[in-house]
Every structure is written in C-alpha cells, then in structure tokens.
C-alpha cells in the first residue's frame, strides 16, 4: 500500500517538474532551459533534503515542532555570512562562510549539550534554541552596527531563494540530499524505536547515543549545505513531514522517502509560483511556501483529525 502511494508521488513529482519547466516569466528557449532546469533541480534537492531532515529531527527530538532550523544551523550560517562581510569585507562566494558558520554552530550546540557520553534530547533542543537566538541577535547587531550597507541586503539573502547563480551549488545540494536521504532510510528502524522513547529504544537493543549523534550530524550538515545554497526556506521542514505522516503513517522507512518526495514537489511548485505570479519580478519563495502550505496543512489536519507525531 505504502509502495503504491510512493510510486504515485514519484509520478506526481515528475509531472510537477515537467509543468514547472514550462511555467515561468518568459517563454522557454535554449538559453533559459538550463537555467530553469537547474532551478528545478535545486528545488528538488532543497525540498527533499529539508523535509527528510525535518522528519529526522522530529523523531530525534521527539517533538512535533522540530524542524531543520531549530538547532541554530540556519542562524549560524547567516552569522557566518554576515561576519565575513562585516569583519573582513568579504564580497565573494557567500555560501562558503555560511556553510562554515553552520558547521561551527552544530559543533557548539552538540558539545554544549553533551553530558559525558550522552546527549540528552531536552538539553540539545534547549541549547540549540538559545544558540539560535544568540546568533540571530548577533546578525541583527552586526547589521545595525556596521556602516556597511551590504549587510542590510544580506538580510534578504536569509529570506531564501532558489535562483541559481552557480551550477556547483546545485550539484552540492543534490549530493547532500542524495547521500543523506538513503542514510536516513538505513536508520529507519532505529528512528522508529527512538521516536517511541529512548528507554524503549534501549530495550530494543539500539545504541541510541551513537545513532542520535550520527543522524544529528548528518541532518545538520545537509541543512547547513542547503541553507548556504538557497538561504532560509521556511515551512517545508516543519509541515511536510506531518503531511507525509498523514499519508503513509509514522513508520520511518516509508515516512522519510514520502516526506522527501512531497518536499520536492512542494518546493518545485512553490518556486514556479514565486517566479511567475508577479512576473518578471520574483516573490521570495518563503512567502509562497507558507501561504500555500499553511492552509493546505490545516485542511489536512481537519480532514484526518488524528495526525499523530509518533
């Protein structure tokens, strides 16, 4: 049953991608084709990556409000970019300092919450949230303190955007999502157990600390890579896993792949809307994802009434 649903979703993704290829502010010519195709690929990578990371974070933290940005990776990435501009006058390839910032924050959050060999989930969540707030404040501080007007615009970069300037970023995003999602699926049994509760997972003979660390690091690296490539795109990582749960249930083997495909469809279509609705001007994609996804999710919530976290 789940397999059939997943197959249908893959079909739907193919149709959405094909439709997105012909939807745009200008008619499709050879020059435009590659640009639009790369944008669709970035949408697939970002959507699949964020949604599957969201599902993993929700399971690891056993919290339905968890999402890929909750532990501060995103504001770490933002801070990395802002610091590079503010302190070093950096005007080059922003994704690089952003990715570095994101990784440093993961390292910091992980070590802050480590107690001996263990990383208690509550501590992880709380220190992540606090680091997130500190980084955001530092971003605002540097933007308002620095006379460099570039930084005022760096705020926009954080809003998220699937425009492709550099095909290497598309490849990096595809690689991050493409390598990460199979790993998540390999760990699906452990994720099922952990989302029941750590005690229960232990009784099932799972070395939860190792699994938690590995998954936390992998999901964070994917998130950092995606934030660096396309900024903050809200909503996908939070809501799509819940949609996936409503469709295939809470078992992670089906859940992760379903969330990934749904996330990809969702971003590809949202981006098509973002570049078309006010053509030739663009709308930041985060606005579209919330406007499209919010009401749809509420509808789903009313309809199924029993979307459960576990």
């Amino acid at each position, binding site marked *: 049953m789940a397999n059939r649903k997943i197959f249908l979703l893959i079909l739907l993704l193919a149709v959405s991608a094909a439709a997105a290829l012909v939807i745009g502010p200008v008619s499709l010519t050879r020059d435009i084709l*590659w640009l639009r195709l790369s944008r669709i690929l970035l949408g697939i990578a970002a959507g699949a990556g964020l949604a599957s990371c969201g599902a993993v974070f929700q399971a690891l933290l056993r919290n339905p409000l968890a999402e890929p940005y909750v532990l501060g990776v995103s504001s770490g990435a933002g801070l990395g970019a802002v610091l590079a501009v503010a302190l070093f006058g950096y*005007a080059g390839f922003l994704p690089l300092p952003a990715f570095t910032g994101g990784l440093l924050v993961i390292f910091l959050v992980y070590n802050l919450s480590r107690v001996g060999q263990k990383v208690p989930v509550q501590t992880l969540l709380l220190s992540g949230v606090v680091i997130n707030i500190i980084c955001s404040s530092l971003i605002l501080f540097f933007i308002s303190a620095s006379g460099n007007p570039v930084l005022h615009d760096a705020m926009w970069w954080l809003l998220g955007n699937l425009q492709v300037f550099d095909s290497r970023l598309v490849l990096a995003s595809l690689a991050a999502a493409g390598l990460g999602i199979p790993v998540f699926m390999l760990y699906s049994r452990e994720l099922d157990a952990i989302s029941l509760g750590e005690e229960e997972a232990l009784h099932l003979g799972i070395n939860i600390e190792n699994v938690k660390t590995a998954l936390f690091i992998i999901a964070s690296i994917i998130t950092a890579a995606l934030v660096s490539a396309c900024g903050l795109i809200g909503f996908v990582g939070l809501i799509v896993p819940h949609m996936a749960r409503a469709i295939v249930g809470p078992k992670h083997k089906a859940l992760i792949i379903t969330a990934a495909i749904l996330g990809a469809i969702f971003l590809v279509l949202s981006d098509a809307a973002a570049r078309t609705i006010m053509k030739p001007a663009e709308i930041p994609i985060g606005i579209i994802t919330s406007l499209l996804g919010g009401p749809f999710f509420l509808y789903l919530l009313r309809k199924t009434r029993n979307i459960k976290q576990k």
Partner: protein
Amino acid sequence: MKRFKKIAGLFIIFFLLCGPAYCRDIRVISLAPSTTEILFSLGLSENEIVGITNYCNYPPQTRNIPKVGSLATVNIEKIISLKPDYVFSVGSASNPLNKSLKAAGLDVKIFNAERLDGIFLAILDIGEITGRKDKAETLVKNMRRELQEIRDKTKSIEQPKKVYVEIWGEPITSCGRNSLVDEVITAAGGINIAGSINTLYPLLSQEFIISQDPDVILLGYMSRDQAGLKKAVASRFGWQNIKAVKNDQVICDISPDIFLRPGPRIVDGIAQIQKRLYGE
C-alpha cells in the same frame, strides 16, 4: 516684590543667554547622504552642518563632522545635544524616528526626493530654509541646463541601448518604473529593461534578464569590490550569452553614489552613464 525681582532677573539672564543665538550660524543635521551633499553644495560649512549619518561620505569634509548614527540606528540624544535649528530627515513623517525627533521639540524637515524634479525641489526648499535661496536657484538652473544638454544629445541617438541596472544580487534587485535610476537611464538615452515594472526596486527573475538580452549591465552595488562583482556577475550560470557579458559591457566603475543618490551630483551621473553608453 522680592519674587518678582527674582523672576525678572531670571528672564534677563535667559535673554542674555539667548542673545548669541540670534547672531550665530545656523545649525543643521542631515540624516541622508543626499541631503548632506545638497547642504555642502549650497555652501554651508562644517560649522553649520553639525551632524550627519555614517553613510554620508561626500564631500571629503564629511569626515570631520560628528556622526549621529545610520538611518536605522539614529542616536536621538546625540541629535538633541547638538542643538540643531533644523533636522533634515527622510521617510514618512509618522515613522518612529521622525515622530520622536518632533516630540523632542526639534524642527524636522522631511525630504524624500525620488525623481529628478523632486531633487530640484528639495534643493530649492533646503536653500530657502537655510537662507541660501540665490545659491540654490543658481545650482538648480545649472543642473537643469546640463540635463537639457544631455537630453539634446539623447535625441540624436539612433539605436538606444538596453540597460540592465543591478543594485543587489542576492536576490537580484533592479530599479523599476518611477525609480530615480529609471529616469537617469532614460535621460542618458538608454532603455531600462526593468522600466515596465511598477515596483520601485523589483526582485527580477534571471530568466527575464537573459531573455531581454541587455547591451549593457550597470552595477550599482553599495559595496567595495566592484571589480570582483563584475567577474561574479559575468560568470553566473546561464549569463554567458547575454550581449553585455559577451561584449564586456558590464560597467562597475561608475560610483553608484552619483546615480542612486538623489543629490546634486545626479546630473553628473547621467552624463557619465551617457558617455559610457555612447562615447562622447
């Protein structure tokens, strides 16, 4: 009677203190780089312009003037302590900054020039307020004359060039209809490819820019490394076939301060752009 004497005495001291105020220089604060430039070009001195923003970088004398912050982070206490006669501000009259400046009893004058005509009006108004009416009229007359000369040249251009102006790249931001830049490009004889868009500063889609195939790309970033930006723009995915990139017509060496800033140097900016588009 004793009390009356005391009060009278206070009054006399008060007036004695105020006396010098009537014969001293005017004291003004500018909260916009364009206003600062206007004030200097009207001949106000460093003693009269007592406070400016961190972004005010022209003319060189701005270096010696106390800074009161940038627009988002203006220090109101500092402004009050500088005892200005006028504060030249920008933005809406009801925004928190302007409201609190007014509440502090300051005489706030707001200028939001977005078009060439607005710049001329602002210069005339500021001239009137600061007692430099004649100077302002001469300045505006000269600017109008030079602008007319540029427009006369524009009339003889047979093949107007398509220009794409980029003021920021993440996300791609250009200048639409009703923006000063649109007027500047049109006056210089170019066609602004974003000129049909109603937003002032539209976020453009790359696909649109590529399909418009502009002859010239004008970079107006407020950043330091313009040459590096030029390289980055030219090497963007899918931009190699744009005429401006193919023919090395990505202009990065005209300071955006002279074509983005609604100040007295704007006509010079138009002249420089025209020269780069069509030669002498």
